[in-house]
């Protein structure tokens, strides 16, 4: 741990690239996670059907979406980390979030590649696929911070 702290101090900031992992899209087809990179900034949120704060966060973003889109151009990518137990439940729930890009990470390969330990874990990624911000956990109102970061990318 102390060794890690030593590593942390004095490192220069640089943007991490979105990793290339093959996972399922909403139609059940295998796609590369790089395929979501299309020039538009995005909020990538890792969630699961048993994670209540995750669902609260995605609902909160959904409630604000119209207003936010008037001020900034971005998209929302919801990555379900539900395994075979509840992936069909996750596919049912995403019907509530029209307009979101939904991916299904059944064996948590994308989650592992993004170093996500706990959900919700949310990333802001710019149009070129660089991760510019990350935040784990959700408290009502913290979605405002995501929007502030998105606005900076415009």
């Amino acid at each position: 741990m102390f060794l890690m702290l030593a590593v942390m101090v004095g490192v220069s900031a640089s943007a991490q690239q979105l990793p290339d992992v093959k996972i399922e899209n909403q139609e059940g087809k295998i796609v590369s996670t790089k395929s979501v990179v299309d020039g538009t900034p995005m909020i990538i949120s890792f969630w699961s059907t048993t994670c209540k704060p995750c669902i609260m966060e995605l609902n909160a973003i959904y409630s604000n979406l119209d207003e936010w889109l008037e001020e900034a151009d971005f998209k929302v990518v919801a990555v379900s980390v539900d395994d075979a137990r509840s992936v069909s439940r996750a596919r049912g729930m995403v019907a509530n979030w029209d307009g979101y890009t939904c991916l299904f990470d059944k064996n948590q390969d994308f989650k592992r590649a993004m170093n996500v330990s706990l959900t919700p874990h949310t990333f802001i990624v710019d149009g070129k696929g660089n991760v510019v911000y990350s935040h784990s956990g959700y408290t009502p109102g913290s979605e405002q911070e995501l929007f502030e970061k998105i606005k900076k990318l415009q």
Partner: protein
Amino acid sequence: MKKFLLSILAVASVFVAEEASAQIKAGEGQVSIALESNNIYYAPDKRMVDLGLDKPNDRIRGNFGSNDYLKVDYTLGRFSVGVQLDGYLPGLYGYDMYTYQQRNSKLTAFLTKYVQWEDQNWGVRVGDIYDQFGNGLIFRTYEDRNLGFNNSLAGARAYYNFNNMVNVKVLAGMPRLYDVRSKNPVWGADLSLSISDMAGWYDGLISIEGSYVGRYQKGAAELFPSKEEFGTVVAGVDGDVVNMVSGRANFEYKGFSLRGEYVQKLNNDKFSPALSASKGNVVNVDLGYNYKRFSASVTFRRQVNMTAPIELVENGIGGGNTINYIPLITRQHTYSLANLNPYRGTSVHTGGEVGGQIDLYYSLRNPKVRSKYWNFHANFSMFNTIDHKLGNMDMEGRNAWIDFNFDVERQWNKSVKTTLFYSYQRWDEEINHYDAAVAHYCDSHIFVADVTYKINKKHSLRVELQYLNSNDYEGDWLAGTIEYNFAPKFSFYVSDMWNCEAMQDGQYGNGIWNPDTLEYDGNALLHYYQVGATFTHDFLRLQLSYGRNRAGYVCSGGSCRYQPAYTGANLSLTLSF
């Protein structure tokens, strides 16, 4: 305690360094680091010790435990390399690693590593591999830190994708069994053919898939030979190799989906000390339908002796000793009283089960007013045991679990949201423990009200009330939670779960058995309280809590583990950058 204070100190130093940057650049590539540390200090709780619920003498590794995971990856374009160090310093109580391996050593560590090249249409990985074929019913290697499972395959994997029409994957290696590397090699291949892509049909999906998986254990047939017992022949393992095959078909078109899978174990394989070795199979069918804001999903599954362990052992296997994944498919509950007695499968005792679940979602929304909506969700599931033998007795399949759940979520405006939840659960308590000839059914009704009030942009309050009504098992329960949030950094909560009704239901209940008078001596009506706080700052998350924890099953994904009761302080830290 000293170690606990030390970790608090370490965490405090993180605050000092919190201004450090979020990523590290190394040459042309980049390094990312993640740390997760879960620490518990087990405190003496006289009340629980007196009742025999907390057994401090069983804590052979002392009163402090820490499960830690440090992961470091380096990526340069399509190339990546990484390591993960798991440290159990010593391990927390209630994880199968210790239950089944009986490790007395205080400190344990395990290192996993990989090198990988991920091209557009092909990829190669050498080292620890996490993968699954289909739904994982034939093969799945994965990590679940809530359960302490990690069966990563140390070996090699290669795949090739031809124009999305043909996808072929091969892999082989030695699985990890808790904190040792098993000597039993496992190998497999997976082929997926996309008929729709071949036919140039892009409106939907039709695919046919198949897998093969094998495992070798030296001397398995010698260890478990066929033998005669009480006049009947008990089948043994017929060779040192077990082979499994599976076939799958998937269809999707305009919101309708149908997915089917059949897996067959071709050789006799011993799976539990209670049963003779036998071949197994599982059939799984998933049906899904989405139309606008309505969606439905139905799952049916029947499985017989399909558990495929990494190592065949005489006694006890533990949830982590497996190369395939047959998850529980009942709804996984998030409210504590709905989770008191979760369904955890019957196949360990009876060799198999048959059942399914239905999920219905409907959302009522005005597309113009996004901050107001209704969400309705209903769910039903049922599982029965299959016909099987108990010793020499023929047992007919019987109901093991039923639950029906309904919840309504209403976002009234930007500041108020309410959730009402009801769950009916019925289970056979006998079959939860062992394969019993006579069932002992318990019923419970659970009611929950959950209100979130957003005071302003930063402050919010959440209140949760729960009531469990039951005339058997442990009787009635009450629970409540109050949570106060300061977005985006702080959150505080207090909660209590109280078993409020004295109950003696046959050999179950909350009565206190007095060994001197051989009579019940009052009832243990305990409060399970918790108080906690969470701090989050970008890549850091810190959670500190203190409370009394009930003995029970902790489920994550489709598996569960038994957690003994304890009172203590819990500090967890995650860092990723």
